[in-house]
């Protein structure tokens, strides 16, 4: 239920934005979830539904997965993160702290651990709609 902590962050961040923008009723929140973190979308959705406050009564949470794309800083090779190639313990470590990917994953072409996560790291707020 580590997803619960991330759902709290989503609700808290949207509440702060709504407050700042003068939104009294949030109608739609688009969330992107990077595949690197392997967030369980069902659990995230459930946590969001349980954490809703008055402002979120009519909110539609749209959660979209984003492929995790990695690029080697040494040879420039780009590839897509694939959790299936990892053992359970390693996948779980990356789930909690996605940067741990640098401990266990190397560039498939030149074996360097020096790569960047171009996209698809963790949980991001894509957009918010609401009634002022």
């Amino acid at each position, binding site marked *: *239920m*580590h997803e*619960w*902590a*991330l759902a*709290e*962050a*989503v609700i*808290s*961040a*949207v509440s*702060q*934005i709504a407050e700042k923008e003068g939104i009294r009723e949030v109608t739609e929140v688009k969330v*992107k979830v990077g595949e690197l973190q392997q967030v369980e979308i069902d659990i995230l959705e459930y946590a969001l539904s349980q954490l809703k406050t008055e402002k979120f009564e009519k909110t539609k949470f749209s959660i979209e997965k984003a492929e995790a794309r990695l690029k080697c800083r040494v040879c420039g090779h780009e590839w897509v993160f694939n959790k299936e190639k990892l053992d359970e313990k390693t996948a779980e*470590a*990356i789930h*909690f*702290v*996605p*940067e*741990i990917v*640098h*401990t*266990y994953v190397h560039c498939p072409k030149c074996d360097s*651990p*020096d790569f*960047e996560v171009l996209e698809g*790291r*963790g*949980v*991001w*707020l*894509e957009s918010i709609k609401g009634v002022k």
Partner: protein
Amino acid sequence: MVDPRISVVNERLKNIENIVAVSSGKGGVGKSLVASTLALTLAKKGCKTGLFDLDFTSPSTHLILGVQEMQPKEEKGIIPPEVYGLKYMSIVYYSGNQVTPLRGADVSNALIELLAITRWEKLDFLVVDMPPGIGDATLDLLRLVKNVKFLVITTPSRLAFETVRKLVSLLRGLEIPIVGIVENMKMDDSKFIQTQVKNLGLPFLGEIPFDNKIEDAIGNVDKLLETVFAKKVESIAAKL
């Protein structure tokens, strides 16, 4: 695109009375040993204490404490396990003893993640073992954590103190409280550091003699707390 994690960082830390970042301008001055011993001493005195190792690329507090094969409990986030009376959090729960090469942006992301998902209980003190210098972890801690104060470690070396001077200048510019400066690994009776600290108008919290028995105590907390080093740290803890 908004990173939602930042909005919960101070919520996660709201039940902590004192967040003390043990920091220095240079590496190798004994931060991790001071931070670990300080946390153990505070816990021994009856204060509810946590220890958070923020040196992600070169963590060492787990070696000092002799922590092995432990995992945080997952409960609506992660709950730091208890180690010798401390709530203890480190990236090594996930990286093990493997090398973790991280660039600045990765350090920032890992730091934000752990701050956002770690559920600390009510604590009197959270001692933070900082990586050396004024890089990403220090800047992020200053950016994200509202009520942090710094305990700065130096050695008798003028080189170490010059880097401390820069760290102090940064902290002062940002109006961050500095608890004081500790002189570690002292080998003679020079008053150079003490005078410099006084000239900066900061509290000189004490000097710790170079203790050649400390290496034998690494990984053995009972032995560590019996060292001259620990007795000196105890007198520093009393000043916090």
